[in-house]
């Protein structure tokens, strides 16, 4: 009786354990599925790890039979808290106990396990559903993000079977400031001039181990104590590829890519390439430049040349300035600044300073920036009439006005103390009026609205139809002044015969005049002066620009008229006969023909001599290219011989064709069509002509 109850109890416990293990396995599978969706195949290990952890944990905490009995007692009241009796030895039961066992064992046989017993499995299945849905979402999203191009897979490199282990130590050169690193893979990506040390352990002793490089140099590795470990070092100065040779056995090709060290870059934010510091402005030049390098910047400075004097009396003086920042930390990017005080450099109006920035990187590669020019214009030169009167027929009074305003402003500033405030303000205001008039005159050129003004009063626009040019214009009458050089059959809007560049500058001039006028009206002639000078300088520039230049063009001689010219005796003339033949050879024809062969997989490898020769030549081209750019062409260079030997898969064909395709140069050539003319057309045309002539 007790035995039967004990058996049932054990069987239920075993079932419970199996259910729990099944639940853990299902959960692990769900985790693996999610992992797979997230990270691909390696994601399966997440599931394996889950399984390991939870299974071990579960097995370590297996419930014993007493716990099972307790659970039964809790679950089924009809057992009357007596399930524990089944675990006792039947001989040791007292009378009451054996009676109780008899009573409940009959009930136990009739009991059904509750649904909650299977709960872990249901829960796990729910987890499965969630994981499945999650994976589907991740996968479908990943599908949308899939790149267009087939990703060029990094091929798993094949190592010679005789090699047990390899350690390659790359020591980057000092200029990079990088740490020594070790790798096991033979494909190398190293900095320019890096030292690479190979350490190869072979499974069995070998007599020699060589590294064969693409530049046909050979590095013989030196054996260690036994003949199973080999060492060798080489400085890598140019890219290419190499092979490992064990005795006579040759490995595949390994890439040897170089990371070049580019010279530093300079980007100057300020000043502008051509800067002019107008009179009255602080003579300061702020130099602001962004310096970058791929490793480190060792040093940077500003090399300046100051030119003073004019004509034959010009003198040059060279000077070097350091930036305000220090380069001792060897940054790889820095914003360097420096403010030059031109006065303290001894520069006077009319002088110019030319400077460039020189940056040196940790490998002592130097980059020079463009040359920047800062000019302090000579105010005296602006007043000179040289060139103005002679070069163009200019009416000087329009330009003199701006000069006049400047002279008067300066006189006003000089006489400020003796004039008294009211007089001073009134004269400043008058100057402002003059400035306005001048601005209006120039505004006419831009088609700006005209304003009639003070000196003349309201003016009728319509009474100029008679074009009375002889009449002297009244002072301040802008329209009358305009008549002297503008032909007024049209409105002001059309008086825009300047090109956009000139108009732009004219506009800038007007802006300066505006500002000058503002300062004058505010009784601040001192502050108006810089604007007045700038306006004058811009006007002078304008005057230079308005000169027309005729661009040079290619010459095409006019055909000779034989009836008029060279009609004399020509017997003695024997014109030249040029004869030349060019040895022409289309360099890409070989590659193109090889591509066609690769497009017909049936042809290789059982090909005829001509095809084999074509492939050999194409391989030669690929080898040359692979030595230059191993990352791009090495895979193709390896794939092509495989195709020749008939050991290639579809991907090898594609890799070989991609490499060859990239070798092609763009080219054009006139070629006739490929369709033969139809006899029908010819006959038709001939008959047409026949009937036409009849």
């Amino acid at each position, binding site marked *: 009786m007790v035995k039967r109850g004990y058996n049932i109890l054990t069987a239920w416990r075993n079932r419970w354990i199996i259910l729990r293990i099944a639940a853990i396995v299902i959960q692990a599978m769900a985790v693996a599925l999610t992992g797979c969706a997230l990270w691909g195949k390696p994601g399966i290990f997440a599931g394996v790890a889950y399984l390991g952890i939870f299974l071990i944990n579960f097995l370590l905490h297996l419930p014993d039979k007493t716990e099972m009995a307790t659970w039964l007692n809790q679950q089924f009241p009809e057992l009357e808290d007596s399930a524990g009796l089944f675990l006792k030895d039947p001989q040791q039961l007292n009378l009451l106990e054996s009676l109780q066992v008899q009573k409940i064992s009959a009930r136990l046989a009739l009991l059904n396990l509750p649904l909650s017993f299977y709960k872990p499995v249901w829960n796990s299945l729910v987890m499965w559903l969630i994981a499945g849905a999650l994976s589907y979402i991740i996968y479908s999203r990943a*599908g949308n993000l899939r790149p*267009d*191009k*087939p990703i060029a897979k990094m091929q798993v490199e094949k190592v010679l079977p005789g090699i047990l282990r390899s350690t390659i130590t790359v020591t980057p050169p000092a200029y990079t400031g990088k740490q020594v690193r070790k790798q096991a893979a033979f494909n190398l990506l190293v900095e320019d001039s890096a030292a690479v040390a190979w350490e190869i352990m072979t499974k069995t002793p070998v007599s020699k181990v060589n590294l064969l490089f693409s530049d046909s140099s050979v590095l013989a590795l030196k054996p260690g104590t036994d003949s199973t470990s080999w060492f060798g070092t080489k400085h890598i100065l140019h890219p290419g590829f190499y092979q490992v040779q064990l005795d006579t056995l040759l490995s595949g090709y390994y890439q040897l890519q170089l990371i070049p060290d580019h010279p530093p870059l300079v980007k100057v934010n300020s000043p502008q390439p051509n800067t002019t510091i107008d009179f009255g402005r602080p003579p300061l030049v702020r130099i602001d430049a962004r310096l970058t390098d791929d490793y480190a910047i060792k040093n940077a400075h500003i090399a300046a040349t100051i030119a003073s004097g004019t004509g034959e009396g010009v003198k040059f003086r060279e000077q070097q300035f350091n930036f305000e920042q220090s380069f001792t930390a060897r940054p790889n990017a820095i914003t360097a600044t420096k403010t030059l005080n031109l006065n303290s450099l001894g520069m006077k109006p009319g002088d110019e300073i030319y400077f460039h920035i020189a940056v040196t990187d940790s490998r002592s590669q130097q980059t020079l920036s463009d040359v920047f020019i800062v000019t302090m214009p000579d105010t005296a030169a602006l007043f000179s009439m040289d060139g103005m009167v002679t070069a163009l027929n200019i009416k000087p009074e329009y330009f003199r006005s701006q000069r006049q305003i400047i002279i008067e402003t300066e006189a006003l500033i000089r006489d400020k103390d003796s004039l008294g405030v009211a007089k001073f303000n009134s004269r400043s205001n008058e100057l402002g009026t003059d400035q306005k008039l001048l601005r209006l005159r120039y505004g006419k050129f831009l088609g700006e609205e005209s304003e009639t003004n003070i000196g003349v009063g309201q003016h009728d626009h319509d009474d100029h139809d008679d074009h009375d040019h002889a009449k002297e214009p009244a002072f301040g009458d802008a329209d009358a002044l305009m008549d002297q050089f503008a032909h007024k059959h049209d409105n002001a809007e059309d008086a825009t015969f300047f090109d956009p560049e000139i108009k732009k500058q004219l506009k800038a001039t007007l802006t300066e005049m505006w500002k000058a006028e503002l300062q004058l009206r505010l009784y601040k002639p001192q502050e108006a002066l810089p604007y007045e000078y700038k306006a004058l300088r811009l006007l002078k520039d304008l005057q230079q620009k308005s000169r027309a230049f005729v661009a040079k063009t*290619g*010459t*095409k*001689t006019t*055909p*000779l008229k*034989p*009836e008029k010219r*060279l*009609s004399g005796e*020509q017997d003695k*003339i024997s*014109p*030249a*006969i*040029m*004869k*030349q*033949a*060019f040895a*022409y050879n*289309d360099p890409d*024809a070989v590659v*193109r*023909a090889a*591509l*066609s*062969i690769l*497009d*017909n997989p*049936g042809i290789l490898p059982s090909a005829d001599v001509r095809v084999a020769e074509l492939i050999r030549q194409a391989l030669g081209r690929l080898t040359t290219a692979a030595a230059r750019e191993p990352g791009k062409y090495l895979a193709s260079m390896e794939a092509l011989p495989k195709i020749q030997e008939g050991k290639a898969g579809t991907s090898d*064909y*594609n890799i070989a*064709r*991609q490499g*060859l*395709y990239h070798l*092609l140069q*763009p*080219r*054009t*050539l*006139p*070629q*006739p*069509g*490929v*369709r*033969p*003319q*139809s*006899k*029908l057309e*010819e006959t038709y*045309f001939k008959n047409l*002509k026949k009937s036409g002539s009849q």
Partner: protein
Amino acid sequence: MMQQWTSLAIGAGVILLGVLLWQEYKRASKHWLAARLLATTLAVVSLVALGIRHSSTAPTSPGNKRDTTTTSKPVFTSGYWEKTLPYLAPMRFQGKYHNTTDTTIRLHLTYAGIGLDSTTVAAGSDTTVNLQTVPPFLGSGMLQLLAISNKDTTVYPLPVEVMPEKRISVLFIAGSPGFENRFLADWLATQGMPVAMRSRVATSKYVTRFNNMNPVPLDAISTKLLEQFDVVMADPEALTASEKNLLQATISTAYKGLVYLADSTHGPLKGTVLLKDSLGKPSVTITPQGMGRLLQLGSSNTFAWKLQGDTLAYGHYWATVLSAAAGNTGVTTALQLLPFFATINNNITISLKNTGKQTDSVLLAGQVRLPLAQDALLEDHYTATWWPSKTGWHTFRWGTETYHGYIFAPGEWAELREEIPAGVVPASQDKGKGPINWYWILPLLASCIFLWLEKKL
């Protein structure tokens, strides 16, 4: 819908038959049992047959192209490209794509997985597609057109044969020595083209130049001289009236091209526009002249491009002009497989055109000897019938000539292949209203009468 109705009718018939047979079998009187069962079965079968409409049994034709546009699969409704191209000439694919899906489909023109050109077809639209590239191979090769919707990729093969490089011989007749002619002659000569040039320097004195050819007297322009050249580049002012007439006459009877250089005295360019300048004005025009062509150029300072280092633009311009001028010079024979999508295990017509001299009457398709039939009306046209048993490129030999032709696999370009065998009428479009088979009423009535009579007797 039709299918559902049919299965419904059959299901109901089977149940009815079961019930009736059981009733007949259970009847106390076992008189004529077998005959009754048979009659019952016949009656029910006839009834069901009357219910089912005939059209469900009509054959569906695989070549019924219109049907494909109503299915959910996106397809090409037309597609064409030149299967044979001159060296370095672009391959232009033109087709109409019907995107029936609700996502944008991208079409990529690729070679060995390298994208060369692409376009997109918006969801639910029917778009004309133009893709082009210069095939990288010389000889027969394969470009691919990929139609990529969300996850599905359909591959369409584009077999192309690129013909070997040919030489165009050019004669220049210039009124004076000039940069334009000189640069062009240099460019052509360095690419191995035979070039001859005559530039006038005095009344009857010419500077001549010959590249990649033997010197010939150029003082007088004659038919014999012109025979040696494919294209003549002439300065219209440098020609006398008689020379002009001779040139025109030669061009119009001999498939040659005449290019008139830019000339300020002429008015606007006449003829079909071949090239436009950046302002959209015609820059080069072409006019057919009998069997030949006349091209007029609008500008004569393309050498400036070369001076600026824009060699590629210079090359494109002159390759276009001279290719157009040369036309189909020197081509005497061509082979074509019909239909356009020639498929394996199908009847293929090999159409051969030959204007030259060739006497062999048998065409070799691999090892198979195919007799050629000359067309009754067109003497230069031959045909042969062929059943290819392998897909891919095939080589054909005829005398000394070799041709290539591509045979498609059955799944390739399936939507565009016409496979309607002769004599098969495409099925009627309105499937729903097939005629009812009234002749089934006879066995039904007969069975019913028999069962009724049997009970009475």
